[in-house]
Structures are given as C-alpha cells and as structure tokens.
C-alpha cells in the first residue's frame, strides 16, 4: 500500500515537472558557416611519354629515351619524373618538353628550384629551361626570387635539350644526370 502511494506521488511529481518544462517558450536562431579551402597542386603530365622526345634526324632509334612518373604520396601523383637518355653518341641531340600541370586555385611561387647538376660529362651539354607563360628562364642561371608568381591554373613547362657535340673517350659508356626538385609555395608566404 505504501509502495503504491509512493509511486502515485512520484507520478504526480513527474507530471508536474513535465508541465514546468513545457511551460517555457523557446526560439532558435541558426548560423551555418561553410568553408571550402583552396588547393596548391602541381604535378607532371604523365601523358608526355618517350615519343615526345625529338631526336636528331639521323638517329634511327640508336639513342633512345625513357620517361617514368612516380607519386610521393597518394595525394601527390606524378610528382616525380625520371627521364633517361640512353646510348647517346657524338652528334646526337634530344629535345624534350615536360608539362607541369598547375591545378592550384591560388597563385603559386617558387620557394626553391632544387636544381643540381649531379655529374657532368665532357662534350655533353644539357640545357634546362623553365617556361612560364610566354617567358623562358634558363635554369642554370636563374635566381628564384626573379620568378614571378604563377597565376592559379597556369601550367608550366620544363624544356630539356641534350647535345653531344664532343668526341671525348672519357664520355663513352658513362652517365650524366641532373635533378630538378622545385618547391612551390603559396603566393603570400
């Protein structure tokens, strides 16, 4: 009997409290904020293959080239290009233009070129040029601070010209290479 009274009292109290809760009016205001961030993304166009290498007319497939592209991370596909010119001989020339696609939505500037001539070989000349818009820059003699910011979405080109003019015995069965590992950053850094 006491239990049933207690339960009844609890019910009454609960109903009273419900009443108190509903008694207050409320109103709601909403502020929804959406932020879509931009992107800074440059990568090599992997549709440029060995067939893009322009050789001297009488090469007849003696000298040949290979181009491979690799990703640093899954987010950065085709961020590394490896170009190899094989079986180069005195008199051979090779001309290749790699396209650097700029998918950035903000202006970009070069932070560093990361350009090094790892080895050189007598008689072999490798000319490297960077093409931004209509302007061509010689990578061998380039101060990074002189490069203008690159507008969003504006692609770049890296032009490589190889010429074996000499006939040095030292250059037989040898390898020469350079690396170009530019670091890009946003325009306002």
């Amino acid at each position, binding site marked *: 009997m006491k239990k049933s009274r207690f339960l009844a009292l609890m019910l009454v109290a609960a109903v009273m409290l419900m009443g108190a809760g509903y008694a*207050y*009016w*409320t*109103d*709601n*205001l*909403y*502020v*929804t*904020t*959406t*932020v*879509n*961030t*931009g*992107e*800074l*993304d440059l990568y090599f166009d992997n549709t440029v293959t060995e067939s893009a290498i322009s050789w001297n007319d009488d090469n007849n497939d003696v000298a040949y080239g290979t181009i491979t592209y690799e990703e640093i*991370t899954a*987010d*950065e596909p085709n961020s590394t290009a490896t170009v190899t010119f094989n079986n180069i001989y005195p008199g051979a020339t090779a001309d290749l233009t790699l396209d650097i696609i700029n998918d950035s*939505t*903000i*202006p970009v*500037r070069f*932070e560093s070129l990361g350009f090094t001539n790892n080895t050189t070989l007598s008689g072999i000349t490798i000319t490297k040029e960077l093409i*931004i*818009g*209509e*302007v061509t820059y010689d990578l061998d003699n380039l101060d990074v601070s002189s*490069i*203008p*910011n*690159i*507008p969003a979405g*504006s692609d770049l080109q890296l032009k490589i010209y190889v010429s074996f003019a000499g006939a040095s015995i030292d250059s037989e069965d040898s390898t020469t290479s350079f690396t170009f590992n530019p*670091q*890009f*950053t*946003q*325009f*306002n*850094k």
Partner: protein
Amino acid sequence: MKNSKLVSLVLIFSIILMGVGYAYWNDSLSLTSEVSTGNFEVRLGICQSSYGDYDNYPINSDPHYDTDYVNGTDDSNGTHSYNGDYIPVDHSSDDILLIANKEIIFQLSNVYPGSGGWFNFFISNEGTIPAKLKNINKSVNLGSHLENSFIYKIGNIRLIRNNGTESSSNTITLSPDPKVYYTLDSFVAGLEDILDDYVLLPGDIVQVNNSSQATSISKMFDIYLDTNTTDYINNYETENQNFEFELDFVFTQWNDNGQ
C-alpha cells in the same frame, strides 16, 4: 380526510414559499475574462560580410604577381592588372544568405592559409516578452578534422536598448575587445559566455560587429585559416576540403527583467 388536509397544507405552504422567492429582488454581475498570450520572437539580421587575404598581402606592391608580365605582354614589369589590396578569396554571389530572419548561411570558398572571411549580424527581440540565450549548440556537418585548423574571432558586441536606436545612454558593451579563439569549442563557449549574461527586453538589439572595419582580423564573426598551425607546403589535410559547422542559438523566455 386527514391525508387530504395534510396534502392541501403542504401545497399551500409550498405556494407561499414560492411567492416569497419571487418577492426578493435579484441582480447579477458578469465577468468576462480574456487572456491574450505574449509573443516570443527573436530574429537575426545581417549588416555586412567580406573576405580577404588576412596577411594584408598587397598585390599592388608585389613585383612578382603581374599577369601581364607572366604572359610576356608587359616588358616593363611596372604595371599591374589588379586594383584590389588583396587577392580575394573566391566567392559566389550568394556567399551570405539570411533565411526568414532565423538562419544565416555564410559560405567561403578557395580559402588558403592566411585568408578568411567575416560577417556582422544582429539579434533582435521582436517579441513582447524578454528573451535570454540559454545555450549555443554546435554541430559540425563536414570536415570535423579541420575544426581546429582555423582561427575564430569575436569582435565588438553591444546590447542596444530601446528599439535599437544607439546612443551612449542605452548601449551596453558586452564584449569590448576582439577575442581570438584557436578551437571551435572555445569559440562557441566564448560566444555563449558573452551573450548568456544578458536579457534582451522587447525591442532590444544585440549588435555583433565592429565599428571599425579598417583593419583585418578585426571584424566580427570571423573565420580564418591559420598560417601558424598549417604547414604551407606539405599539409594536404587542409587543401581542397569542405568544412561546415552550425551554431544553434537557443533562446528562452526570461521572466525576470532585472538586469
């Protein structure tokens, strides 16, 4: 016979009593009670919004950003095709919307480290009874991993009495100095802390803005992608992302207007 006499007496007595009843004057009073309920109504309004490069990147003095020069059409490298002070954050024409005075939708796109956007707004008590902020509910709808990559800022907040006509005598400064927060939770808590101490009387307006629009990061409800916590080069986490959060300002009636 005795029975019939008794019945007759009862009838006569009843009729006498009826007569007595009719003999008294009577009158009546009528009370009609009408209860009209109050109106509980708080509303939002927008004053202004903008966006920009918060590093104050001056495009006009930048020797490196010149589209004419890049395109080879300007040999002098002396003229610039941009007139603005900053390179703007792209935005659509509907970057800020006010829906039924109950919801503000603020959108920014192409935000990069060092840039952001802001807007000013006001909350008005359009009802007939006082209102008070109960709490602010936060929900992150998109990109919850980014919520602490941004800097949030609250500028000047003023409570203006008497139907919002601002004067020194009827304006209470709730938050005089800009407050900067580095997490979304602290931003919401800060906003709640400023607003929930005050009762909005009917006609009151809470103005959430800053009187001075001259400098960057001095505006009101401000969101800015942090350059300090974001690696400029290799932090892909903040690139090409969507981040959306909703703040639900819950107001409740306040029966004590003693503030």
